[in-house]
């Protein structure tokens, strides 16, 4: 009996290893793959920015608002700077702020969410009520007020974004923790005397990773919006370093003469946002997470 099964399995392996591989990809896997590819592309361009940018992004030239040419692939802006180089280097500032800020919001959200969800009681009440107050502000309005208060600089922008998105992150973490902490394996771990810290990190946290990953990806998409919108209003990283939102704002004045100066940064912002949305949707399906807050 076991021999036949064994033979069948062997036969199946020999004959069907290729047919196994031909299993159709799910839509989630396709999205995830696409998202990862776009992300990799963005990271490569960002890391190699100084190497691949054809010109110094701040170098002006006599040919202002030039049409695309073999030398300036995307033309030049109003004071003759190469648009492509500014786009590549500007992505650095924008994505750096986005990445670091969301990481901070995630870290703060994890600590607050775990504390709130796992400890519960008065700690939960105090943390959630305080976060509710921040949550009551329209995100973008709060970001404007904070960044205007602190003054627009890269560290301040990072801090602002982190403050603004922490409450949402904490909520995403807290929800699943509330139910996971009542599961049997947590009870079992506690009954054999595992320390609370270890329970949280080893038995609760791994169970809530999926929704957090999806929420992080969505937050990254929203952060690209917030950061470029702030820069668009003149509250972004100070000049002369290029950034996408600032490029868009500068180019508006002459956009009918050189539409590419507007379309290029707009395209870059859309591409970056789309990357994280595609990634979030792929992750959601692959990790089988319901809708996240």
């Amino acid at each position, binding site marked *: 009996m076991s021999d036949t099964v064994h033979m069948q399995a062997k036969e199946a392996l020999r004959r069907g290893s290729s047919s196994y591989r031909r299993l159709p990809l799910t839509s989630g896997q396709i999205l995830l793959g696409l998202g990862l590819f776009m992300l990799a592309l963005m990271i490569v361009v960002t890391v190699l920015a100084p190497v691949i940018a054809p010109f110094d992004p701040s170098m002006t030239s006599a040919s202002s608002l030039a049409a695309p040419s073999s030398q300036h692939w995307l033309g030049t802006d109003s004071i003759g700077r190469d648009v492509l180089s500014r786009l590549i280097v500007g992505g650095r500032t924008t994505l750096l702020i986005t990445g670091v800020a969301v990481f901070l919001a995630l870290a703060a959200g994890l600590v607050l969410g775990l504390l709130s969800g796992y400890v519960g009681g008065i700690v939960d009440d105090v943390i959630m009520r305080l976060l*509710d107050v921040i949550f009551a502000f*329209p*995100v973008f309005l709060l970001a404007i007020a904070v960044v205007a208060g602190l003054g627009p600089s890269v560290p301040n922008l990072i801090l602002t974004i982190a403050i603004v998105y922490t409450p949402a992150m904490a909520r995403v973490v807290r929800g699943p923790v509330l139910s996971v902490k009542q599961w049997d394996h947590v009870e079992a771990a506690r009954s054999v005397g595992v320390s609370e810290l270890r329970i949280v990190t080893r038995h609760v946290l791994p169970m809530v990773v999926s929704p957090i990953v999806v929420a992080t990806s969505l937050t990254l998409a929203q952060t690209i919006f917030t950061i*470029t919108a702030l820069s668009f*209003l003149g509250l972004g990283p100070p000049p002369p370093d290029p950034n996408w939102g600032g490029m868009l704002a500068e180019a508006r004045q002459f956009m009918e003469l050189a539409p590419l100066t507007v379309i290029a940064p707009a395209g870059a912002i859309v591409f970056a*946002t789309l990357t994280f949305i595609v990634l979030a949707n792929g992750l959601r399906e692959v990790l089988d997470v319901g809708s996240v807050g």
Partner: protein
Amino acid sequence: MKRMILARLVWTAAILLGVSFVAFMLVRALPGDFAQAAAGAQNVAPEVLEAARRDLGIDRPLLEQYLIWLGQAARGDFGNSFVTRQPVLGELLPRFIVTFQLTLIAGIIAMAMGVATGLASARLRGRADWIVRIYNGCILAVPNFIVATLIVLIVGLYFPQIAIFNYTPFFTDPLANVSGLLLPALSLALAVSVTISENTRAAVLEVSGQDFVMVARAKGLLPRTVLTNYLMRNAMTPIVTVTGLQVATLLGGSILVETIFAIPGMGQYLFDSITGRDYPVIQAIVLLASAVVVLVNMLVDIAYARIDARAQT
């Protein structure tokens, strides 16, 4: 029900108090004070600055300033603008109405588009579902200020006969006023319509699977009747809730869209005030916008409980 409403009211009041405190502190964290900002680059004698501070009331302890400000704000007195010396409320109100109008039109457009695409997606399934979902994903990736900029660019390049930058007050010419707000409202509405669309799709799919819908079909009711009286009626609750919760997004986005389309609303006012360090104006706008969001959320909660008996716990 009464208990629930009362609890919500108390809770809303508490949140508003917290919000007002944060709004006050945020603005006071602005570097450099107004007396200095008003003096600009000139060298002003310290005594003059001191006198200006005393005059504006910004030399007192913070908590005292907050309580004074709160007491007056509760009576609708947001103080005088540091720049124009006029009462803030009088300057803010007409601008708030413009923003409100823009938000309202955007909300209506977003709701119409969202419900239509969401319904198509849920009812037609298959290819239509895929097209709508891909379209939604792509639209979500285009921020409202980019939509607005591109609209201005396209109109400028290809439809120069359309004047987009002349805002007409409502009472001068209501029709011109509303039609002038259509393009700004559209750029504001697109991203919001995606959220509504996705929620409509989910709500309709969920209701479609319920027994009472099957019963209605089994009775032989017309598909039309089933759709309007059974499906939509029950799916409307989550849709309305989600739309209400998008008010914050609309208000935030209107700051950008107003700046781009040169609409004299609250967003533009806020932007000017931040540049001019006009504390009372910034405080009033942040407080007003947040209060609107908090109140709308409260109304949505109460309405939800009123419609859906299951949520009354």
